[in-house]
């Protein structure tokens, strides 16, 4: 045992001896690939005089956001139809999917009960303000092109949206689900016209018992990609 260890130490000592060429090649170390020393000194090494060109890469303009405003009409169940307007912000995740948030406001009119009963009012004037926000997911279901005349083509897309949010109406915030269909018409690569039809659904108990109200909305909007 002891002699074996001694042999190991010996081998290590031999290997570490740099002068012993034979041992080096035996164990596969060392400068076997060393080129033979050349007789003449190396020629003139080319010294590159070329100045490195500084390349400043301009940033690529990413246009995944879409912002804009819209206006249209909205029918508030039991409370007539009125003008609606608001703003929209969207982010395009892929060529198909986008996420979108809208904030809109309208003003409810009188219900038929209020009209027929004369003076009775179901809510105060300020409670007639109808304000909603929504967070939606959208999908461009039918992308395409529109041809106007012989030589003009515009990109367009029919999309579906669905999402949730809240509506403040009749003094309370109401959990609201909305679904819709929209049409985006790109006037240029960055400016779009929208036509949207959406339905906002929430539960309300202002007129008698609680029910799910349908509040369809149709609006025209325009957006800018940035």
């Amino acid at each position, binding site marked *: 045992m002891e002699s074996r260890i001694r042999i190991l130490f010996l081998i290590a000592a031999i290997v570490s001896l740099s002068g012993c060429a034979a041992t080096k090649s035996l164990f596969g170390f060392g400068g076997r690939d060393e080129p033979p020393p050349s007789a003449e000194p190396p020629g003139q090494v080319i010294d590159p005089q070329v100045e490195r060109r500084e390349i400043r890469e301009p940033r690529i303009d990413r246009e995944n956001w879409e912002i804009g*405003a819209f206006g249209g009409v909205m029918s508030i169940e039991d409370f007539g139809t009125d003008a609606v*307007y608001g703003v929209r912000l969207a982010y395009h995740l892929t*060529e198909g999917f986008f996420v979108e948030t809208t904030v809109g406001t309208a003003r409810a009119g009188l219900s038929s009960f209020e009209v027929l009963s004369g003076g009775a009012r179901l809510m105060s004037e300020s409670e007639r303000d109808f*304000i909603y926000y929504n967070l939606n997911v959208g999908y461009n279901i039918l*992308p395409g092109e529109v041809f106007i005349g012989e030589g003009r083509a515009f990109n367009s897309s029919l999309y579906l949206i669905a999402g949730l949010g*809240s509506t403040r109406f009749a003094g309370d*915030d109401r959990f609201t689900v909305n679904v819709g269909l929209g049409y985006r018409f790109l006037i240029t690569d960055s400016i779009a016209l929208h036509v949207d039809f959406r339905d906002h659904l929430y539960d309300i108990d202002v007129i008698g018992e609680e029910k799910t109200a349908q509040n369809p909305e149709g609006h025209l909007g*325009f957006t800018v990609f940035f």
Partner: protein
Amino acid sequence: MAAGNTTTTHLTRRRIRSIAAALLCATALQLAAPADAADEYRTVTVADPYIEMHSGPGRGYPVFHVVDRGESVEIIKQRADWFLVRAGRGKEGWVKQEQMNRTLQPDGNTFSVPRPSIEDFTNAKWELGVLAGDFDGANIVSLYGSYSLNPHVSVELWGSQILGNFSDGWMASANIVHETWPEWRVSPFFTMGAGIIRTEPKTTIIQPEDRTDEIGHVGAGFRIYITRRFLFRAEFKSYVVFTSRDENEEVEEWKAGFAYFF
């Protein structure tokens, strides 16, 4: 209380109007000054036999032009996975990212747009998300922002709107999140925090007035990396509402949603 409501609603309406006005101004400005972006574009050279220019940035738009190997194109803009490029003679069209990734930059390197991966999911500093779900029978919609102190620990700020049958409310809270295996695609986490809750009973229900209480919570959930910079998140939280009454309230919350990290 009615007067308070009136002012709030009026304020909100006015705010929306001013936001709309500001937006219109901003878009008008952008329309008025389209030239500033037109000064300098990045140029790449086609290395494949050709790249295809489509008439629109999406599936199905036809190829109307090809740019041959050796020609160069200017990149005007990017939208999702598509690049609007300008080739010789002013031809403009949309090229898919896969083809753009095989073009060469002026310095000879391959042009490539970094694509976020699961490593970014593990190491991202910031996260922004929206979740919705059930808060003790009421609907809840939440928005949160998160900052990672390290891959395992992050701090979060939450704002939630609670929409119930009998009362509405708001909740704001701060919490700390611990992820045991942040490098997993499905990464479980534990969380605890504190905040305040504001409860406003419905106008059609006769109840005591609005109240604000402090809350504390613990919870658990998981984050799942989907693709690019998006993740799915689902969680359960158990809240204790420290009411001014004799008994504290306990509330359970389940919710799920999506987040974006950067």
